[in-house]
């Protein structure tokens, strides 16, 4: 019985020393925040589109021109829209197709003076994405020399 009490006392001593060698944990709390970020930039160089040839009996061949753009987007389903500063002459069309990061979608859109959605963007950071413009001008639309400004706007997603 005495030995038993002595052993218990020794165990108590060992436990007390083992748990008290290192003081308790310390904590520090910080608040993190990652804002919705949608940054995009189009190559500032002007794109020239010239229709100059046709096969006799067929409307002039469309002209295409390309450029690039870059995107940083950390939101889901950010919507990119485009519009012209003024409508095209009657019968002529100017359309755009954007290259987009994997997971995003885009489609060829005929631009007007009204803002139209051109892409649905997923979370990504990518540069050197393609932009292709196509100008069509059937013979009935006549000839024309002019400038158009395409304005892109984005609405961040969730």
């Amino acid at each position, binding site marked *: 019985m005495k030995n038993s009490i002595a052993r218990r*006392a*020794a165990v108590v001593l060992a436990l007390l020393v083992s748990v008290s060698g*290192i003081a308790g944990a*310390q904590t*520090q*709390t*910080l*608040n*993190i925040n990652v804002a919705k970020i949608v*940054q995009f930039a189009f190559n500032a160089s002007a794109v020239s589109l010239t229709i100059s040839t046709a096969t006799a009996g067929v409307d002039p061949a469309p002209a295409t021109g390309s450029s690039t753009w870059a995107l940083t987007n950390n939101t889901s389903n950010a919507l990119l829209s485009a519009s012209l500063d003024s409508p095209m002459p009657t019968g002529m069309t100017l359309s755009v197709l954007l290259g987009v990061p994997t997971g995003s979608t885009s489609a060829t859109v005929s631009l007007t003076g009204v803002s139209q959605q051109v892409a649905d963007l997923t979370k990504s950071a990518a540069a050197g994405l393609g932009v292709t413009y196509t100008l069509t001008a059937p013979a009935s639309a006549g000839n024309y020399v002019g400038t158009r400004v395409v304005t892109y706007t984005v609405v961040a997603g969730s």
Partner: protein
Amino acid sequence: MKPSVLCLLTTALLLSGSRAVVAQVTVTPPIVIGNLSVTSAPAAGLNPSPVTRANAGTYTVVTLNKDPNTRIMAQLSGTLPVGMTLSVTATAPNGGVSAGAVDLINGTPVMVVSGIRSNTNRTGLAISYTLTAPASAGNVGTTPLTVIFTLTP
């Protein structure tokens, strides 16, 4: 014999009391003022810039005569969105070695300082944090995260 057993127990309690206040790490402030906020990318096409809070606080470390190689461990209590990382950098006391910027993991201690000598007693050692959030990781509103620091002999 009973008095001798009581004497032994009393000795144990006294020893315990003297050890509990010696080896420790103390972090201040307990709550870092202001948010650690990622707000922009350096340019379109690049991932958002990491943000660093260089002076998020300080810590004090006290070691015992019998602790020749004490380490400071840190772990996260809380989950970061997939793809985001929160790293901590702790300045080491003389003789110790800082692990540099170490990514914190929820529920798993990682070493931030090692080789702390015995009988160390240093205050005002700097703590900094860096939050990295690539675009693919998305965004997150203000979220509190707790970092737990412990000493390991």
